[in-house]
């Protein structure tokens, strides 16, 4: 091996190692911080809505969505596909709890515009967490790049199934965030 080949080889190895360090170090913090910033912005918007008198600070809907946003803010760093998989394995036989369902909470609201705004906050929060989950995993990122064209075509032809898939994914994410919240308390704080 001559000097040039040696340099090239070391360059490739160093590049791969720096990439791994960057992806599992600064990139992870950046994604988590970005998600949290967006969730804080949503929480601020919700607060301003209440401060302007559109919804009461004491109403169940306001408290529900604010707590959901706080929960996702806390959960952002734990949102990984392995964590989600652990929840799916442990929690597969449990029936979903409807009291935690956004539809149930907002269906009782008389102001439909407000109900839709609150649902929008919740939906955006879940989408943000889902995107973070994908971009924080090399495995999911590569899988998404490969499957994205097929998924897009599929979603165009079968909108109903896509909607079902999206809502069940949102429910799983919500459940993971909720269980992570209580799990952390019971394991770490006990």
């Amino acid at each position, binding site marked *: *091996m001559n*000097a*040039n080949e*040696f*340099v090239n*080889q*070391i*360059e490739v*190895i*160093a590049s*791969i*190692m*720096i990439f*791994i360090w960057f992806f*599992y170090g*600064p990139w992870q*913090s950046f994604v*988590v*911080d970005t998600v*949290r*910033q967006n969730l*804080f912005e949503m*929480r601020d918007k919700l*607060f301003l809505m*209440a*401060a302007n008198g559109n919804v009461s*600070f*004491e109403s169940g809907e306001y*408290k529900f969505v*604010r*707590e959901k946003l*706080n929960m996702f*803010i*806390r959960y952002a*760093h734990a949102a990984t596909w*392995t*964590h989600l*998989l*652990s*929840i799916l*394995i*442990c*929690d597969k036989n449990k029936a979903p709890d409807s009291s935690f369902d956004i539809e149930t909470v907002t269906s009782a609201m008389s102001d439909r515009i407000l109900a839709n705004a609150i649902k929008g906050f919740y939906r955006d929060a879940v989408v943000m967490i889902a995107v973070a989950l994908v971009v924080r995993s090399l495995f999911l990122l590569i899988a998404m790049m490969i499957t994205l064209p097929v998924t897009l075509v599929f979603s165009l032809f079968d909108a109903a199934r896509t909607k079902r898939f999206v809502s069940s994914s949102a429910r799983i994410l919500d459940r993971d965030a909720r*269980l992570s*919240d209580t*799990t*952390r308390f*019971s*394991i*770490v704080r006990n």
Partner: protein
Amino acid sequence: MTDNARLFLISRGFELLKEIIRAAILISGFYFAYLAIAELAGKQTEALLAFHYFISRDNDYALPWIISFASLLYAGMQRRLRLKKTQEMQGYIQELELKIDPNRTSSGLTTTGQTPAGGI
């Protein structure tokens, strides 16, 4: 075993697996670097190689590496500034919001907006 303990064990198992894969990649990197160095050992000094690397046009005078490291340093400094700014601003926001809503709930993050050590 309780549900929580089972969940804790499984999720920690996955985390351990991820750490093992990451460590294996890093160890392989060091091993291949060692093989390359071992093959060239005694033929050329490291100082000379590094010098050639920085003055070689084939390697673009190491500019990509220099720019990458400078960018990383800049990004690190920007991040520190952002955390400092967050810490400064959050106090005011909290104070103002508490005046309007005394029952205001918190996210539980640190004053810089990060996960507290030991979890939330």
